């Protein structure tokens, strides 16, 4: 009884604080409930702000020397922007798995192109484009490891490393229910943890894993893909015009060869990866 | 046999020359009073005797132990050489009785019943039996200093060092403390070194007077001779200022 009162008091204190600062989720939804609001904003301001990854080789990575973001997702964002609004300027905002959805719902970014798999749970919160990239979940292990595929990890005592906020850690529970999941904040930490023996394998989408294997000699991708992970571009709910414009842009890129050019640019030299496979 | 012997002792605080070429011998059982203006080095000198201050040059032998030697066990030395401070330095977290009993218990491993009996006896001697279970903060300055003397005596020392024991006391408290010190001085086996400004006490109790100024010993004379015919001009000045 007393505990409840304390908890209740603490909660009302927090709720009051958050209402005053105006960042509760209800206010966020109220603010963005106008239909096609994002699309109209892009047309009006001629700016399209993309949430992208900054820590994922090949897809979206901050080049430390040039200070610029580079990768397949980044190039896609630029090409799509051209086709959605030829006058629009591309703005790129680095996001993490944890911040991307709140930033989208708050209107800090207009859309997300950041290795984000289309899932039914996510579709309840955001709207997705058609898939623009077909990834699949795979495993990265140390060169010395005996692990050949996901079945080798379905045993007690096995530890599978993943990244918080990626659906790959939810997936892997289905494929290796006996293993323990160790979820780390970002890919760099997860990779270091793998190298330090904090886990038997690192799992996430193969595109990301290949990116790690390119740069790090001591690790390799094994076992092929055990899921299909269609990446989609996410926008705030109630923006059918923007979703359509993005879908049209991707179709356009596929038919005029731009898409293949980009896929080849980023994935052709990656050992063990078939870029035609992901671009289907 | 000498209890304390300084030979050419030097002491510096950084660049400040606190003790200049000190030569002094105190026999066992002797009572010696140190006089001099403030800042003359009396307190520094007395604090070198039990190692609270280190020396930088010369030799200092106390109770047959060499204080210039860093290997000398100061804890062993201090069992035999007690000290009474100007500001009492009673243990604020201990009762009066514990203040007296703790060092004999830890250092001398004195039996607990005997320890308590000794402590109560000493409290009776300084007239504070009824304060045994109080804390230092509950006592007056004079009472605190009497406890501090009892604490030193509990170790059954061969020598006692008094560093201005009455300077921090209200005037009406001074006599009670001096009375106890006089009684201790009467014990012929106790060596006493007293830094004080109490001339009456010095005249009455001291065997010898040491007069210091600017870190040097200027005069070392029997008490009567010092007060009647001081040889040094500085000493004469000092006496005329104090007495009148």
């Amino acid at each position, binding site marked *: 009884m007393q505990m409840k009162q304390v908890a209740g008091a603490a909660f009302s204190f927090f709720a009051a604080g958050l209402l005053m600062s105006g960042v509760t989720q209800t206010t966020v939804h109220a603010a963005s409930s106008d239909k096609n609001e994002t699309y109209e904003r892009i047309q009006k301001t001629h700016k399209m702000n993309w949430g992208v990854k900054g820590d994922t080789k090949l897809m979206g990575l901050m080049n430390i020397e040039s200070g610029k973001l580079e990768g397949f997702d980044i190039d896609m964002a630029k090409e799509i922007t051209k086709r959605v609004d030829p006058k629009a300027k591309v703005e790129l905002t680095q996001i993490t798995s944890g911040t991307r959805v709140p930033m989208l719902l708050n209107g800090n970014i207009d859309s997300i192109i950041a290795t984000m798999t289309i899932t039914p749970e996510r579709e309840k919160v955001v709207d997705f484009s058609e898939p623009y990239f077909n990834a699949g979940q795979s495993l990265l292990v140390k060169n010395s490891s005996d692990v050949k595929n996901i079945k080798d990890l379905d045993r007690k005592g096995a530890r599978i490393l993943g990244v918080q906020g990626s659906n790959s850690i939810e997936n892997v529970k289905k494929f290796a229910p006996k293993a323990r999941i160790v979820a780390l904040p970002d890919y760099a930490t997860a990779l270091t943890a793998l190298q330090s023996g904090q886990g038997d394998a690192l799992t996430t989408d193969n595109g990301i894993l290949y990116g790690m294997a390119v740069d790090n000699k001591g690790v390799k991708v094994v076992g092929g893909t055990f899921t299909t992970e269609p990446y989609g571009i996410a926008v705030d709910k109630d923006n059918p015009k923007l979703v359509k414009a993005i879908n049209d842009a991707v179709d356009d890129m596929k038919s005029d060869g731009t898409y293949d050019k980009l896929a080849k640019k980023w994935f052709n030299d990656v050992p063990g990866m078939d870029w035609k496979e992901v671009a289907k | 046999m000498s209890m304390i012997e300084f030979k050419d002792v030097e002491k510096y605080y950084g660049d400040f020359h606190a003790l200049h070429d000190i030569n002094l011998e105190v026999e066992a059982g002797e009572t010696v009073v140190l006089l001099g203006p403030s800042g003359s080095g009396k307190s520094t000198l007395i604090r070198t005797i039990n190692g609270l201050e280190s020396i930088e040059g010369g030799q200092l032998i106390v109770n047959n132990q060499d204080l210039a030697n860093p290997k000398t066990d100061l*804890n062993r030395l201090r069992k035999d050489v007690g000290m009474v401070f100007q500001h009492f330095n009673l243990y604020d977290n201990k009762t009066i009785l514990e203040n007296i009993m703790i060092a004999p218990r830890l250092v001398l491993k004195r039996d607990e019943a005997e320890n308590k009996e000794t402590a109560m006896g000493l409290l009776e001697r300084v007239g504070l039996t009824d304060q045994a279970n109080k804390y230092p903060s509950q006592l007056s300055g004079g009472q605190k200093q009497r406890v501090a003397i009892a604490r030193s005596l509990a170790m059954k020392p061969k020598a006692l060092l008094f560093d201005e024991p009455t300077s921090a006391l209200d005037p009406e408290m001074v006599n009670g403390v001096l009375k106890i010190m006089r009684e201790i001085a009467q014990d012929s086996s106790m060596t006493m070194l007293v830094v004080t400004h109490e001339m009456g006490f010095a005249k009455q109790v001291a065997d010898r007077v040491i007069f210091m100024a600017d870190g040097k010993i200027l005069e070392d004379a029997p008490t009567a001779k010092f007060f009647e015919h001081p040889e040094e001009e500085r000493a004469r000045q000092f006496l005329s200022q104090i007495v009148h």
Partner: protein
Amino acid sequence: MWSLFTSHASEFLTGFGWTILSSVIALIGSTILGLGFALLQIVPNRWANLVGKIYIEIVRNIPLLVITMFFYVVVANIFKLNGFISGTIGLTLYTSAFIAETIRAGINAVDSGQYEGGRANGMSWWETMRYIVLPQAIHLVIPPLGNQFVNLIKNSSVLAFVAGLDLMYQANMISQLTFDTFNPYIIVAIFYLMLTMPLSYYMRYLEEKNAH
């Protein structure tokens, strides 16, 4: 919020349990280490002072996360340390430096006459510390020590960065599973308050009790 809690109760409670365990271990460990390093800084031995000073200056001027990562990815190559252990070691060492400084300040605040009285009375350095100076210093440092303990509990959220299974880790996982980035953290905040508020009150009680 209540439904979020009930549907993920076992995760929250597991996290709460790991947070408590880590905090208790780190609290005991850092107090012992902190006391040790405080004494090392004041013991009459120049080399010991130097060792204590170097330890404190290094540890308290490095972010907690860096210390934790050091154990998680570097030391783990030699000794098997999982995220929970690495995080708890990091938390213990990091907090110990602050506790050492707090206790040292408390010891310095005790009138030097107390120390001189003990030494002149024949007691050794350690006896004087143990029976005279430290009891008085502890009394002085209870309020700042309480702050360090509260900080320690909050800092235990560093475990989330190394998959240490604590409250914050569970909140991250739940939030990313449910796409609710608000309520899991409110629930976690309440759990932290359940630890820090009673601790604050208890330290205040000790402070008042000691004032007499």
